[in-house]
């Protein structure tokens, strides 16, 4: 895999990561006497990053989406072969764009409840950490960013959270740190074994190590497990998910938004980039295990979500279920499944990020998230109800909205690879409809009693924050082609990489209509959206 450097702005990705850091440093240096300036400064820094990300989206060459673009490398710790190496391909492009866009929205949409200066500074550090993780192409650099995001999130949960915030913050930190502790050992072992197998200098360069598989099968499997544990905690996969409900429930609204939309993706992205790509044989070997855990997560998350009394906790458990889909799509190890998985990473970020914002708005108005105390909000707040409904339906996977496209592709891929697990997972789609619709019904329908009747509707600012989410939800549901076009070449390259490096492995594709390609699928979905009854039609197509 070669890499392309940008000719017009070679340092684009480095600047993208460093601008939020610079913003945080400016905040740190500002006097405490001007609290009104903290939010604008944070907003400017994150907006610059967002603008840069959008520029990159426009500049990105869809034709060579399998190649790392905006690639750049500096020496960092020369003695150990560690470099600062960044680049995006079709896998990471939309995650980077989504991250860069969600941060300014989360900063505008939610005010710091107290001590704004450290709050916004931590938000910016968090943004830099998340962006750095998605663009890192050096194993140590990746680890460094993967780990550093814990610190700002720890402080956001502990400092601005609710309820048992200190407990939730420590639990979050230790769970994720435990996962990544073993990954560090695995990274170092991988680099040394690779260099001794090759006779070259020690390098932590992802592409060099991945393209030159020298490990013994057994060793690679052990190392894969160490990496997978780190990512499984972050995703989170059953049974290491228990930190998530606590962290989400007690985090401040913006923290929940970022946690769900961006930070969970660090795990799923890692599974693809540092699981499939680095350890193709081990990925094939452990795929049944990962799919099983994913399916358990889907069913378990759905059932647990249905049982929740706290609206935020319900959304948190729904994340466990949704992330299960991404994992089974990834380990279906075919183009449909993996494309769906990557697409679903973005979709889940948009939908669940928006859901947490909306739950935060409800909490701000009613000072409770107990579903039983809410009810009939539709009458006093019709706009809020409408927005909530669109977002909720996108999360359910309604055709025409973004969630459907991703889930369909995932199930399609999983069906070709592990038929019966796909059937079970499909039940999870129905369960999602059950718990989300039921929750919506209890919160928004019925008579508005007491304080519920006086709930104010969406304000202008809140409407403006929600508008981009709704736009993305509808756009990616109606016209996913430009997104899929950019993801698919990278996915194909990964699948081809797995096929090349695992003897006897053939991409599991449909036996009935092997000629149906994703382009046909996207086209048929376009048509389906035009004549309004596309769901069954395109499912037949697969």
């Amino acid at each position, binding site marked *: 895999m070669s890499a392309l450097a940008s000719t017009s702005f070679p340092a684009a990705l480095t600047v993208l990561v460093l601008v939020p850091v610079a913003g945080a440093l400016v905040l740190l240096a500002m006097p405490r006497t001007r609290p009104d300036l903290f939010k604008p400064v944070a907003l400017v820094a994150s907006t610059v990053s967002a603008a840069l990300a959008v520029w990159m989206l426009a500049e990105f060459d869809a034709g060579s989406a399998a190649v790392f673009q905006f690639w750049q490398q500096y020496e*960092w*710790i*020369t*003695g*150990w072969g560690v470099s600062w190496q960044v680049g995006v391909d079709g896998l990471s492009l939309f995650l980077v764009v989504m991250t860069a866009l969600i941060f300014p929205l989360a900063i505008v949409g939610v005010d710091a409840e107290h*001590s704004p200066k*450290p709050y916004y500074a931590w938000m910016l550090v968090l943004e830099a950490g998340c962006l750095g993780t998605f663009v890192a192409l050096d194993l*140590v650099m990746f*680890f*460094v*960013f993967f*780990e*550093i995001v*814990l*610190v700002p999130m*720890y*402080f956001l949960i*502990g*400092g601005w959270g609710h309820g048992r*915030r*200190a407990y939730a*913050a*420590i639990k979050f*930190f*230790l769970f994720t*740190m*435990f996962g990544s*502790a*073993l990954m*560090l*050992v695995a990274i*170092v*072992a991988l680099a*040394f074994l690779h260099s001794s197998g090759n006779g070259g200098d020690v390098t932590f360069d992802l592409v060099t190590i991945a393209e030159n598989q020298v490990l013994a099968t057994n060793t690679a499997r052990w190392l894969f497990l160490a990496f997978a544990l780190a990512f499984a905690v972050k995703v989170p996969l059953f049974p290491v998910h228990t930190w998530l409900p606590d962290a989400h429930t007690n985090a401040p609204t913006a923290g929940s938004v970022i946690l769900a939309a961006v930070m969970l993706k660090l795990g799923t992205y890692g599974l693809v980039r540092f699981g499939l790509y680095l350890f193709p044989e081990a990925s094939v070997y452990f795929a049944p295990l990962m799919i099983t855990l994913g399916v358990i997560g889907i069913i378990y998350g759905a059932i647990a979500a249905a049982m929740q009394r706290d609206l935020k906790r319900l959304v948190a458990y729904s994340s466990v279920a949704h992330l299960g889909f991404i994992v089974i799509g990834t380990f279906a190890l075919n183009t449909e499944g993996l494309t769906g998985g990557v697409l679903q990473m973005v979709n889940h970020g948009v939908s669940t990020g928006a859901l947490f914002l909306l739950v935060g708005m409800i909490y701000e108005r009613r000072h409770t998230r107990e579903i039983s105390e809410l009810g009939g909000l539709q009458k006093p707040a019709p706009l809020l109800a409408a927005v909530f409904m669109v977002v909720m339906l996108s999360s359910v996977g309604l055709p025409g909205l973004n969630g459907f496209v991703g889930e369909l592709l995932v199930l399609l891929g999983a069906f070709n690879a592990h038929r019966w697990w796909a059937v079970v997972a499909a039940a999870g789609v129905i369960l999602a409809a059950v718990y989300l619709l039921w929750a919506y019904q209890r919160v928004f329908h019925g008579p508005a009693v007491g304080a519920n009747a006086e709930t104010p509707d969406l304000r202008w600012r809140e409407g403006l924050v929600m508008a981009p989410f709704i736009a993305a939800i509808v756009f990616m549901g109606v016209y996913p082609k430009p997104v899929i076009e950019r993801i698919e070449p990278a996915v194909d390259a990964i699948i081809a990489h797995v096929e090349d490096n695992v003897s006897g492995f053939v991409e599991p594709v449909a036996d009935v209509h092997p000629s149906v390609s994703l382009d046909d699928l996207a086209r048929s979905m376009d048509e389906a959206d035009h004549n309004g009854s596309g769901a069954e039609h395109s499912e037949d197509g697969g």
Partner: protein
Amino acid sequence: MGAVLAQLPVRTPAIDWPGLLPVLLPAAGALVLLMLRSLVPSRLMPAVLDAVWTFAVAAAGLVSVVVLWQRDADIQAFGGQLVMDRMALFVAAVVLGSVALVAPTLPRYCRRVGVASAELCVLALLAAAGAVVMAGAADLIVLFLGLETMSIAAYVMAALNLRRLESLEAGLKYFVLGAFSTAFLLFGIALVYGATGTTNLEGIASYLDTFIILRDGMLLAGLAMLLVGLGFKVAAAPFHAWAPDTYVGAPTPVTALMASAVKAAGFAALIRVFVEALGTRADDWRPAVFALACATLAVGSVLAAVQSDAKRILAYSSISHAGFILVGVQAASDEGVAAVLFYLAAYAVIAVGSFTVVAVLSGQRDDRTGLDTLAGLGAGRPALALGLTVLLLAQAGVPFTSGFVAKFSVIAAAVEARSYWLAVVAMVSAVVAAFAYLRVVVAMYFRDSGDEADTPEASKPALGLGAGAVIVAAVLLTVAMGVVPGVLESLSSTAAGL
């Protein structure tokens, strides 16, 4: 006189006196200060001069280290008894740097707590001289001399807070157990001498390289004794029992020195004896160090996690750091030595910075160190709290701090030496230790100060210029070494002979 000497049948060894400046400067500085204090009336010599003098001597020592570093050849003195090679110079820099970092905090601390600053400064410089001798020792006897010079000064320093019973207890415990361990060390030296016929480290190495000892019981027993003796000095479990009480009871700046300079010297000796002299018998001692490292990591991190006193948490965490450094020793390679040296330098800065924050907050009797006394620090003293937070995160091994790079380097050395399980144990124990640091952070930020009305002076203690500068320097160095570790990395690699 010279003519007379030349006619005698005694050949005096050529001594490169400038090469010995890292030893001579602190030793002479201590003696000069001692004499001035005894002769000059104290009204003519304000107490602040003790610390200024100590700082100046340590800084001059650092300059001499930098100058000697430029030389190509190793400096030998006293017929090869003392070798100031790059490794010795590196450790000397860590030792003298720690003293230089601690010195500015002393005047205000000594005035507040009532500790005699002249004695403290003299003993600190003497301990530093002993530590540098240990780092440069090329002979087991010289190593012993350096160790005793350093240890005896440290015993007294630990007991210097005469108003506090715990300080006396700390000194006594440290002394009794330290003397006990010294006996082990001496016995070990004797047995190794018996087995190899020399106490010279290079001689031992070449003897073991040339001859195969068929009945090696005596050598192995000596090796075990040496490990026990030095294990005591670096507070490796199960020989750590003295450390928590001594660290907590000793005056806090002394604790900072024990965690930085004394620890560095102990590990330098460990490397000299085991990696350099007994390197050919690595297969014999590596399993023992493996076990020591595991025990030290486990004991240090688990017990740190259950403490409720900030100083005690830092004491146990110091034990867990010793475990990490032992992971580097266990690798028994040049990479391992480089990692150990990097870790020692990084941890010395972190330890001095952290203990200085504790010292600033510790009140009139130097005993207000409970976690509850930190409550509300984040709101009341944001800069101080941020400084301590950075240092604690560095201890936890968070990226972009020197602590991460240090952990990374020892893990890399262990993995390269195929000690995968030790690396795994170390990383898992780092997670447990992180819990302890996070509890301190929670106390500072996420808990409101309940008794603010009762202790207004304690929640707003005077920081002082010296302590403030030291904390700022420690934080900046910690972050700089984490963001651009290349400089220190190349220095430590050079020192390890890579």
